[in-house]
């Protein structure tokens, strides 16, 4: 079977990309840069805009 060079190129690039992404993720997790708590999700609630608790529901 002859594999077109472009296939090798794509697979190569994709493999490098995936490897890089994985390494990045592992590194970020290892150095505590990913915050597994849900704290970030709360940041949109600090502006006093009405939420059901404050009455108006829109």
């Amino acid at each position, binding site marked *: 079977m002859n594999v077109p060079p*472009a296939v090798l*190129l794509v697979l190569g*690039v*994709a493999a490098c*990309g995936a490897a890089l*992404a994985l390494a*990045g993720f592992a590194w970020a997790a290892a150095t505590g*840069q990913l915050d597994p708590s849900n704290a*970030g999700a709360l940041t949109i609630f600090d502006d006093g805009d009405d939420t059901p608790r404050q009455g108006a529901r829109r």
Partner: protein
Amino acid sequence: MIFIRLWMFFAGVLAVLFLGWVGLVGAPGVQLAALPAQTGLRPYTYQQEHGRQIYIREGCVYCHTQQTRPPGFGGDQGRRWGRPSVPGDYVFDQPHLLGTSRTGPDLLNIGARQPSAEWHYAHLFNPRAVVPQSIMPRFPWLFELKAAADPGEPVVDAPAEFRPGGGVITPTREGVDLVEYLRGMDRTYPVKP
């Protein structure tokens, strides 16, 4: 936080777009550029190229494809729409007109299937005169109503209701060139490996 360092976010964002481009555009570009034109394929004549512009202008591509699928994939072969098309069949196409919709039949080999100019004129003037259940638009602005045809000029076989006060209907230059383009659509030559 995404990553603590913001430049990493931007680098990642640019990298994914670039990777996608490499895979879907760059790499096939390299591979396709190496493929020669098919030997049976002739460049469009000036007239055909003009007809092609009319095809683009009227949006035929939104109802007609120009790509034939291989055996075992859809009904193209059974319908005798032509052998599976290959990249070398399209080297003179700019823009490409592969299409995504088959509200009407594939037209890659319409010239071989329907060589009659008269048929095309009658069909483009009013598809329902030829195929009663057709939903293809008519294109009356590619034709004109005249008292009499010039010598050698084709006359459209149109019912009297389209010719109030008599006279004949003949294709304009745009109509003639469009049909020349359609009649030239023929990729039935054998594929060079």
